[in-house]
């Protein structure tokens, strides 16, 4: 029965033309949920900015690290292992890491999915698909020019934004400030 449902969904999705896809992406600002269903097969959720907001403004007492990256961004790929290492090293302190991919949606399957598998990325990954960058870039931080990598570290109301690359040591130094 489960499979039958799945097949029906698949057929519906397959029958939807490009026209519908466009329509959906313009409507996403009204529904702050993952942009589904045509991307349901992806191993990560896809959000527009409004959908992402709750994930980058959690009101618990944990230290949250949010890294904006993309597979096409060489300095992002370089620093990714440091973020993964930080997540491991500060697990006991309750640190949470979220990797927000800014990959092009048409490359989710061809680039992002294989990358996550090959590199065995264990961190939580979501994709941000929202073309209205002039709205959400300054909303995320007034100082962000739009270059990536970019990182937010926050805990409750304490929040810092970094438009820069990190070494492991630099990242650790920043994290420590939020823990103490």
């Amino acid at each position, binding site marked *: 029965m489960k499979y039958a449902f799945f097949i029906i969904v698949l057929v519906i999705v397959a029958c939807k033309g490009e026209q519908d896809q466009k329509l959906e992406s313009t409507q996403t600002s009204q529904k702050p949920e993952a942009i589904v269903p045509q991307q349901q097969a992806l191993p990560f959720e896809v959000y527009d900015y409004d959908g992402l907001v709750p994930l980058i403004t959690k009101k618990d007492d944990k230290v949250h690290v949010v890294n904006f990256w993309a597979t096409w961004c060489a300095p992002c790929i370089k620093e990714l292992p440091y973020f993964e290492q930080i997540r491991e090293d500060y697990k006991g302190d309750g640190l949470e890491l979220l990797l927000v991919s800014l990959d092009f949606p048409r490359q989710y399957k061809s680039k992002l999915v294989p990358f996550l598998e090959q590199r065995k990325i264990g961190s939580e990954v979501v994709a941000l698909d929202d073309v209205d960058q002039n709205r959400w*870039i300054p909303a995320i931080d007034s100082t962000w020019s739009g270059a990536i990598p970019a990182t937010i570290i926050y805990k409750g109301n304490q929040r810092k934004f970094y438009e820069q690359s990190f070494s492991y040591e630099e990242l650790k130094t920043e994290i420590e400030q939020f823990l103490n």
Partner: protein
Amino acid sequence: MKTLKLLLACILLVSTTAFTADTGGYKVGDVATDFELENIDGSMVSLSDYKDAKGFIVIFTCNTCPYAVAYEDRIIDLDKKYAKQGYPVIAIMPNDTDVKPGDNMEAMQARAKAKGFSFPYLMDKGQKIYPQYGATKTPHVYVLERTRKGNIVRYIGAIDDNYQDAKAVTTRYVEDAVDALLDGEEVSTTETRAIGCTIKVKA
């Protein structure tokens, strides 16, 4: 002792303000520097070479950034539309080519030939110009208006509001800015943000 403390405080104040003033590059309304940079044809290009220009669409861009590539056709269209109206496109490649060999002079020449660039594609050799403008990424656009005081920055930011799909664009920021300047009007949107690739420098 007291004067010494005061002096120290003064030095501290001056040094911190000097640092903050240093970052960020041009704001809208600032006079932008001219330059003399090597073009893909081996010639040296300056803004002052353009005797009849009313202004410029200066675009920091490169071969290797997917965002820059996504905008290539639209950059060509901008030059086609506005060069004859007095606002030529001047493309500047700001990356360090040791870090990004795909942006070296040969690669720039090949890319310009393949795409049929109708505008200069200059190498910011020594990376002296992009920091003065305050460019942080590719693509990063500066619309300049030529005045008696110099080339005044009138717009900084993105080309339009949809990097993914040129057909789905609703606001053409650069076109709107240049159209306003051509009509002798104020530019309404003077600054926008967009995702781009960091300008590559040696670590």
